[in-house]
């Protein structure tokens, strides 16, 4: 059904009067809102104002994905909920609140975790997706699913005093598809480096500010009124009131998304470990004989070192971070232990924490090296 066939009851016309009388908005934009369906992923700090304002504005169908229950610590910012909701599933508490605010809205609840298995099936049913999730794996999942399903992804994200808003994967009036999240952040940060709200905290009013900006973008995407943040990235710092609206473009070298992957693994949340650079014993021997100087570091324990060593600098695994100044940054550095396991850990730690990019793991460790010599 075209939005032009949408009609309003007398009550609805009264309710939406202040929209309808705005020049350039009018009944047509209101029809588009009623004809639209929006999927809100996450009904937390951002989801609260987002859901309230989308419902109040008269979006016809609102889907909510969340598998969490309301906790007392949510009420500092998640104004969608009250004390009587504590312990209830968020999607059900949200549906009840929206029903109380605007009974003309059809609310669809998805009381599940969005996963690579169900994301496309859920997202396909909606016109627009609004991402208010609270972790990197789901951020990349929502982005990739929107790219695959061809849906605009109205993005907002917060941290402590800071918020970001954009519209990704949006096809403008010129027919051109705008940038997506991966054009800006091709890979996630190492796990644990960027805390979420539960770990890092968040000023309660911040999701209110950023979530309403996100709602505003959803309304513009649906109605075509104004200019969306597609191709622009808004950053806001609540403390200094520094704001920047950066121009962003599609990156030619952003890999094409062809399927949904394991996002926990992609973001390193799961045990699966990122690859590090390795060299074989043969390559190691060549490097030792080459004119280019290298540094060799042994991360075994002092007792093991005393027993047998190859003249490497001894820095036991437990102290690599503390002794990082001894590790050269301008030469190739080969790490070894007995078999290669501990030295791999040491390299990961140094790469993740201190940004080393010149470290190589000796495959098979000193054991393989001594075997090769004998």
């Amino acid at each position: 059904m075209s939005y032009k066939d949408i009609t309003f009851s007398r009550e609805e016309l009264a309710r939406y009067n202040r929209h309808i009388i705005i020049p350039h908005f009018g009944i047509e934009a209101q029809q588009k809102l009623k004809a639209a369906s929006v999927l809100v992923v996450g009904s937390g700090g951002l989801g609260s104002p987002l859901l309230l304002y989308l419902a109040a504005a008269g979006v016809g169908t609102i889907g909510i994905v969340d598998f969490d229950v309301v906790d007392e610590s949510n009420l500092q910012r998640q104004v969608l909920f009250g004390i009587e909701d504590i312990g209830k599933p968020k999607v059900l508490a949200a549906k009840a609140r929206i029903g109380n605010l605007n009974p003309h809205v059809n609310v669809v609840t998805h009381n599940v975790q969005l996963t690579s298995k169900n994301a496309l099936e859920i997202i396909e049913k909606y016109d627009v997706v609004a991402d208010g999730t609270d972790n990197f794996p789901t951020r990349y999942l929502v982005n990739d699913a929107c790219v695959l399903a061809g849906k605009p992804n109205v993005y907002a994200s917060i941290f402590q005093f800071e918020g970001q808003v954009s519209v990704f994967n949006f096809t403008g009036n010129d027919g051109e598809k705008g940038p997506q999240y991966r054009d800006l952040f091709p890979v996630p940060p190492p796990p644990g480096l960027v805390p979420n709200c539960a770990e890092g905290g968040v000023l309660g009013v911040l999701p209110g500010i950023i979530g309403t900006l996100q709602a505003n973008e959803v309304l513009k995407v649906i109605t075509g009124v104004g200019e969306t943040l597609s191709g622009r990235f808004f950053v806001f710092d609540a403390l200094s009131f520094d704001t920047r609206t950066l121009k962003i473009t599609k990156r030619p070298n952003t890999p094409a998304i062809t399927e949904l992957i394991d996002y926990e693994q992609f973001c390193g949340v799961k045990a699966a470990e990122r690859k590090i650079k390795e060299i074989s014993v043969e390559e190691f021997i060549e490097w030792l004989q080459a004119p280019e100087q290298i540094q060799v570091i042994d991360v075994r324990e002092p007792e093991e070192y005393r027993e047998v060593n190859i003249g490497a600098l001894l820095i036991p695994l437990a102290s690599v971070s503390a002794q990082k100044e001894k590790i050269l940054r301008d030469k190739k550095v080969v790490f070894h232990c007995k078999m290669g396991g501990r030295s791999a850990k040491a390299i990961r730690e140094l790469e993740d924490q201190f940004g080393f990019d010149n470290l190589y793991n000796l495959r098979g460790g000193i054991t393989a090296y001594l075997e090769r010599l004998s």
Partner: protein
Amino acid sequence: MTVRLLIFGIAHEIAGKRSTTFEVPDNATVSELRSLLSLTYPQLGPLSFAIAVNQQYVEDSVILTENDEVAIIPPVSGG
């Protein structure tokens, strides 16, 4: 030459400041700036932050000029 850094998100905590000036060689690229930043603030190295020069998100090959405003924007994930 000097560029002006505007540092957002976790990068601001790592650097311990929100804005500062930063010395780079003349005609340095964004890529070179990233390396220099990682040397000054080693924990920035693995962060995969976006860089915007004069409010335009740029590729690493872009050449900086004196007094450019360089915004360092790491991803945030909270909702």
